[in-house]
């Protein structure tokens, strides 16, 4: 069976072959397999050297000091460590945290846990373009606010927030600022010497590194303190214990270096592919782009297609691996909380698709996607009573639906 064309690079990316090769050098007896904590022999020193090289590679991608990088198992762990670690350490100062309604679940569910522990969390509504502005954050600040957590780029719609602007607000107010940069790192420039961000989460598998690998940036000046969430041998300056996974870390470092080198050219290429895709479908009636048109990741395209239902749309796009705006795993469809927070109706949220383009997407792939999507929409609208009604000029919002 021929595999569908992959358009889900925001869900995960394949490991770049150049990265895989470096990782494989760190596994076997002949390779660099040692425990970096072994201080008494060459195997340990070699592993440590490779890990410190990777730390520098990741730090370089975001213009930070290598000593500010803490290895984790992924952005989920980084988000947990940042939110819970800061909240627990600074709780005597205050118990208020600000975040947004369209954060990744790793942030939202960490906030829920902190609420159960007695913290107070404000969940900001983004604008209808998906953006959370510095003003919105400024207006939500309180005397007892200790932390603001706002994502750089959103994983569903690909919008990119003005984190430099938000950082000015938080630094002025003496409040810590955490940014989930899992989707933006390696895709758009991040300069932590300029941006007043205190903590930042990264995930290697979003930029052609391995899954199960991430990092948390923890600023040294002004110094940010954390309470560890995983205790043990005191690795990573006590912030995250556990024997360091040399091959994973080397993979993340190599992936970061390649992403940094190729970012500028790749951004131009992906943006062109995205626009080619949009040109191919924008003349279909009642198709809408979700999220801000300008402030978005180069490879991001989330569209709602009115009067066709999302699951059947996915079903007819057999040759394409794309992500849908609703989780149809249960009897009642669960529309995406991100799209709902933008103010989309359940109906439009149900009929949304996320195409994310990446390093291995070609023009030919995009043309195939356009062709298949056009065909599917035509077929499903032919079948859709809603499309009929829309064409007859019926206002669907005024219809009394027989709910079931």
């Amino acid at each position: 069976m021929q595999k569908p064309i992959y358009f889900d690079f925001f869900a995960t990316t394949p490991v770049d072959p150049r990265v895989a090769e470096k990782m494989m050098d760190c596994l076997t007896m002949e390779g660099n397999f040692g425990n970096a904590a072994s201080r008494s022999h060459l195997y340990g020193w070699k592993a440590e050297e490779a890990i410190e090289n990777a730390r520098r590679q990741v730090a370089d991608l975001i213009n930070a000091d290598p000593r500010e990088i803490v290895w984790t198992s992924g952005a989920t762990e980084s988000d947990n460590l940042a939110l819970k670690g800061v909240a627990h350490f600074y709780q005597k100062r205050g118990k208020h945290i600000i975040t947004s309604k369209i954060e990744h679940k790793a942030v939202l569910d960490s906030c829920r846990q902190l609420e159960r522990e007695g913290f107070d969390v404000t969940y900001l509504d983004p604008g209808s373009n998906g953006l959370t502005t510095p003003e919105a954050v400024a207006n939500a600040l309180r005397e007892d606010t200790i932390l603001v957590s706002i994502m750089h780029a959103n994983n569903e719609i690909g919008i990119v927030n003005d984190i430099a602007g938000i950082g000015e607000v938080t630094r002025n107010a003496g409040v810590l600022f955490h940014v989930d940069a899992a989707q933006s790192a390696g895709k758009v420039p991040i300069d932590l010497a300029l941006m007043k961000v205190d903590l930042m989460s990264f995930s290697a598998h979003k930029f052609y590194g391995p899954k199960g690998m991430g990092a948390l940036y923890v600023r040294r000046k002004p110094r940010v303190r954390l309470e560890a969430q995983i205790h043990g041998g005191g690795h990573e300056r006590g912030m995250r214990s556990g024997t360091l996974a040399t091959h994973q870390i080397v993979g993340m470092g190599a992936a970061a270096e390649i992403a940094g080198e190729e970012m500028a050219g790749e951004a131009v290429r992906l943006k062109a592919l995205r626009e080619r895709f949009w040109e191919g479908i924008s003349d279909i009636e009642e198709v809408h782009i979700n999220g801000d048109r300008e402030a978005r990741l180069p490879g991001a395209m989330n569209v709602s297609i009115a009067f066709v239902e999302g699951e059947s749309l996915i079903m007819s796009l057999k040759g394409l691996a794309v992500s849908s705006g609703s989780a149809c795993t249960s009897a009642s469809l669960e529309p995406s909380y991100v799209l709902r927070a933008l103010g989309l109706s359940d109906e439009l949220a149900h009929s949304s698709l996320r195409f994310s383009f990446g390093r291995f997407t070609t023009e030919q792939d995009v043309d195939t996607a356009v062709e298949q999507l056009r065909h599917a929409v035509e077929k499903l609208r032919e079948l859709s009573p809603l499309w009929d009604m829309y064409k007859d000029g019926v206002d669907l919002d005024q219809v009394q639906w027989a709910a079931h």
Partner: protein
Amino acid sequence: MAYSDKVLDHYENPRNVGKMDANDTNVGTGMVGAPACGDVMRLQIKVNDEGVIEDAKFKTYGCGSAIASSSLLTEWVKGKNLDEAEMIKNSDIAEELALPPVKIHCSVLAEDAIKAAVEDLRSKRAGV
């Protein structure tokens, strides 16, 4: 999700897609579901003077199982009289299409649709 071959067949080649004149006194229309729930079915039946369903058409906004349920229904009702058509059970549709538990509601909707279409026709006839 894996679909049964029968669902796929009806989805790929839906039977009796279309629309009839809802004002025709020989046509009964049943529209059930809601866009916000993710499915809307419109089923129409046309009866002859003997009260036998001689034609059926549908259009469905919904998942593959909802489309297949309504497509199958149009095949089943043809040649039946109204009383027989009303007796079609959602469980028969679900069984024929091998719907998984999370998709049973699609067959329930199809049963609702034929009941609504029959009722529409009866009330029209009572009015004449």
